[in-house]
């Protein structure tokens, strides 16, 4: 079924060419951010159930020690980014646009940065069985580091349910401004390669493709040099187009096969992992290091010195901005992630989490014009949509309150990439409408689920009350019979 990928042979539709602005930070080598005075480590940094804290206030922990263990099938544990003392476990602003709080462990670093004894690597990780690799990756708390934060071990176990032919490593980094994956491939190409091979071993696939957009020639070169001795890996340069890094589009570009609607790429035998995830897998297996730090690009026109930083998880983003020389000019907007799909940051106090790949401080010139005008039915959004949807029609239905009609027009297939809103000449916040509609639909689904549960509980209660009354009647009858016997 599978053909080897051929560059330019397969095409994807739509997409846009935003100014990539990567030159701001692409030349900056990775720097280690000094430890901040306090680290705030949220227990929910991934998709799925929040982790449960196993440490207590006042307890001393060492670097890499387990702070909270995973709960349920889709979850990830959380580890201490450095040694120090737990000064609190409570609510702290989440790394989320809503500004809501989330359960967070606050750690005061002691400055010694001592590793925990349990953090021991394996000399030859390639001798591990697929199950052992998956278990170790799960224990290291590794999640998808491209931003989706889906627990990586769950994806490594996909081989149990699907027949897989191909592993695709996503180094596209199609979001403007972000350069941390680029720097990672340039500086740690061997670690990425070994991580990729370990993931392939866990999945049991032999065909591996590392896909990198052509706007990162140094990263392409570094990866090509790193894989000269490993024939199973192929490095492919991709045309620069947003959203090339969306996994379904990447797979279609490489293999020519389209992922079924609402399906997984595993349905067509392909698994996609991010380059940063591959490096994290290598660190976890070879050196026994759990996921306690990550690379973050700090960039944007308002940042004095844009940089690529190696940041301990839990560092407040204010520390990153201070390290980058503060602001050159007052920022109009602070964004976590890329400018296309990233989310505004509520406060500067929010911590860096496992999925944060960028902190952008954008000036007013870099932001889209805000004044919204009526739709002129130009269908630019239809041309730009990489999923083949009709954004203008879906928005018309959402505005009229017909969410169900929007679903028939393919709302669940929308990946919220923002291409439609980017090209809209009327500056209609199309993607905002889609995010609202998706949230509203999810809320309705939850309400439906709750209604079903309520009915079940109400029915169970009726049965219970009937049983109690029946028991009372029987007891009464017995008592009456006993009284009658005594008097007789």
């Amino acid at each position: 079924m599978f053909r080897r990928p051929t560059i330019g042979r397969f095409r994807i539709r739509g997409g846009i060419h935003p100014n990539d602005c990567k030159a701001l930070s692409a030349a900056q080598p990775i720097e280690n951010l000094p430890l901040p005075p306090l680290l705030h480590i949220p227990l929910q940094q991934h998709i799925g159930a929040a982790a449960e804290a196993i440490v207590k206030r006042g307890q001393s922990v060492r670097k890499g020690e387990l702070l909270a263990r995973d709960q349920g099938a889709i979850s990830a544990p959380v580890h201490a980014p450095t040694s120090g003392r737990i000064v609190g476990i409570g609510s702290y602003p989440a790394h989320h646009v809503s500004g809501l709080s989330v359960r967070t462990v606050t750690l005061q670093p002691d400055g010694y940065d001592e590793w925990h004894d349990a953090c021991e690597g394996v000399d030859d990780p390639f001798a591990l069985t697929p199950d052992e690799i998956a278990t170790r990756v799960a224990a290291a708390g590794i999640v998808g580091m491209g931003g989706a934060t889906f627990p990586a071990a769950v994806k490594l176990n996909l081989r149990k349910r699907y027949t897989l032919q191909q592993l695709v490593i996503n180094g596209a980094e199609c979001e403007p401004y972000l350069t941390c994956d680029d720097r990672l491939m340039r500086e740690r190409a061997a670690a990425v390669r070994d991580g990729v091979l370990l993931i392939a071993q866990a999945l049991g696939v032999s065909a591996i493709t590392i896909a990198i957009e052509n706007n990162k020639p140094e990263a392409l070169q570094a990866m090509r040099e790193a894989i000269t001795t490993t024939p199973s890996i192929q490095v492919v340069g991709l045309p620069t187009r947003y959203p090339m890094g969306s996994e379904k589009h990447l797979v279609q570009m490489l293999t020519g096969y389209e992922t079924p609607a609402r399906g997984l790429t595993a349905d067509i035998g392909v698994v996609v992992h991010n380059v940063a995830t591959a490096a994290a897998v290598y660190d976890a297996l070879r050196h026994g290091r759990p996921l306690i730090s990550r690379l973050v690009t700090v960039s944007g026109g308002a940042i004095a010195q844009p940089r690529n930083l190696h940041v301990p998880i839990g560092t407040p983003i204010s520390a990153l901005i201070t390290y980058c020389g503060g602001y050159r000019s007052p920022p109009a907007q602070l964004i976590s992630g890329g400018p296309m799909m990233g989310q505004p940051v509520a406060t500067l106090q929010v911590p860096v989490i496992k999925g944060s790949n960028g902190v952008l401080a954008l000036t007013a010139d870099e932001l889209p014009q805000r004044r919204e005008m009526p739709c002129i039915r130009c269908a630019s959004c239809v041309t730009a949509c990489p999923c083949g949807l009709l954004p203008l029609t879906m928005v018309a239905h959402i505005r009229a309150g017909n969410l169900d009609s929007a679903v028939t027009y393919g709302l669940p297939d929308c990946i919220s990439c923002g291409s439609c809103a980017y090209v809209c000449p009327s500056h209609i916040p199309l993607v905002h409408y889609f995010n609202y509609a998706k949230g509203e639909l999810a809320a309705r689904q939850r309400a439906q689920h709750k209604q079903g549960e309520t009915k079940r509980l109400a029915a169970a209660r009726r049965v219970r009350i009937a049983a109690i009354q029946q028991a009372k009647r029987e007891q009464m009858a017995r008592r009456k019979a006993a009284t009658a016997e005594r008097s007789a």
Partner: protein
Amino acid sequence: MWVAILIITALGIVMGWLLGFAAHLFAVEGNPLQEEIETLLPGSQCGQCGYPGCTPAAAAVASGQAPVTLCPPGGRALAESLAQKLGVTIDLAGVTEPIARVAYIHEPLCVGCTKCFKRCPTDAIIGGPKQIHAVFADACTGCENCFTVCPTECIEMRPLQATLQTWYWPRPSEVA
């Protein structure tokens, strides 16, 4: 003439018998529309509509005695689906989306009288005689049955706070 009278009479008898037989054979217990409406209703038997439970409320809607907008906890979505089921047009201007609330028991005030515990239609309150009660928020439907019976007024109806899992972008404000 007699032949015609006999034929018509015979036809009448045969058809009447057929109809009677069919009525017996295909008899429907209860109003099917009522059952369909009842499956749409929340089913918490909370009584906020003024009827003693969801079954009588469904009967009232099916017979046209109650409007499709009767159910406060169902809100706009329920009114829409009921209107679609009955094929009526509705004015949703008066229907407000209910703010989800759940009961919360202030423990220092609770005397463990079990009144709320007995009234809760979904068994969302846990506790026993002379034991402090607590609300199992996931099972609470916010029907306020417990709120009205508590002798020490220790129950508060708290709006359900959004969490990272339930928060979503609000609807964008529109241009004229």
